[in-house]
């Protein structure tokens, strides 16, 4: 593409069946304890 550089590919509808395994860290436990930032959480699903 000439005009667009994709920084992150999005989750497509095809991925929905393997989502929600719940093995990732609880966001609040990591450092904050007062805010919720899920964007920085590592997905721990090996199948995604």
């Amino acid at each position, binding site marked *: 593409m000439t005009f667009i550089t994709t920084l*992150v590919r999005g989750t497509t509808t095809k991925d929905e069946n393997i989502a929600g395994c719940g093995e990732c860290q609880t966001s609040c436990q*990591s*450092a904050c304890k*007062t*805010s919720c930032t899920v964007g920085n*959480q*590592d997905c721990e699903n090996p199948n995604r």
Partner: protein
Amino acid sequence: MIFQFEKDGIPVVLDVNSGAVHIVDKIIYDILEYYPQGMRDAKVHKDSILEALKEQYPIEDLNAALEELDQLIEEEQLFTKAVKRGGNFEHVIKALCLHIAHDCNIRCKYCFASQGNFKGENLLMNFDTGAKALDYLIENSGNRRNLEVDFFGGEPLLNFQVVKDLVDYGKNKAMEWNKNIRFTITTNGTLLDEEKMDYINENMENIVLSIDGNKETNDRMRYTVNNKGTYDLILPKIKRMVEKRGNKPYYVRGTFTNFNKDFAKDVIHLAEQGFSNISVEPVVAPKDEDYALGVEDLAEINEQYDILEKEYFKKIGTKEEFEFFHFKMNLKKNPCQEKRALGCGAGVEYVSITPEGEIYPCHQFAGNQDFKMGSIWDKQNLDSEIRNNFRNASVENKKECRNCWAKYYCSGGCHANAYHENGSLLEPYDLGCEMEKKRIQSSIIIEAKKKLESD
């Protein structure tokens, strides 16, 4: 739904539903201004777009740009539909905040836990209660393998022998049940000694060490029972702790308030002390407190995030590189829809346990009887009404979130902040939202700059 913004001369387009992020040329940015929100097939509008922009861009460029947009739409990377959640509604608990000590050896003016006792008695959790809490976690964890236990207070080092005994107990129990418990601890650092540091380094996956910034900032809010500042007491200990920690995760974690709205200098100060994992976060406080932040402070706060973003970016790849928690974004493997829509999991899969064994949705609700979900000593299930209220507090069900571009990065924000500000789990804390949006934009621009530099 898309969201466009331009920062430091970089135009960015987010596809909200899929989480795709595109760095675009101005021509794309300008064309997209003519696409109605949610528009997936803009063919009918192409002629009007060409007409509107033909003075600014050559027709062939406009046509080529429109084709690229069509391609993104085709690949489900733009104007995507909301991804359905996995619908995993098992009643499992996977994370505990264990209030190992409702007591503290220092005084912090902004402490939400009322100087450690959560407005109750000064109490230390005994081993039996802690062990029962770990049993509760493991037995209610369903098929989850990775479990988490944060030793929290108050000051958990006041009750360190029980911490150690519980780690031993938890590890054995986890082995029996084929679980992996990740222990973490949140401490003010004042009671750290070599032995405790070694133990923590060996047994805790993460440690959160509290310090607010430079001496003036820290000592204004964090002082000893004799009203003396804690900076000189804390700094050498947490430096030593981090030095011994090697590559294991840690965070030095501070709070900024109305008294240090120029908090970028405090983050930079902590980085200059050699700390490479830093989190400095806005205080959450009743509006009438002199240290509380208000919407009128937003411009100043945003300016500080800009200063910090530039400093942070400048240090990348140098010896002084540091991580700032709120600029950290895992863009490569973004969280699944379940996580993006419901966030922290408080009251659903994450609960806090007080020294008496009472169960609350999270540490910030501990002691509030309206939110008591049960007790580890009862055989009964958790209060289903409270649990359902938390489960339902997703971005889909919050009016303010539904049309917000940032909803899947903050997943609706902190339930406790919402409740304390507005008396409702469903009404987010507006100042928190605005700061979060600012930080997300900074995080994305940092990643965009990295990408553009590497290409």
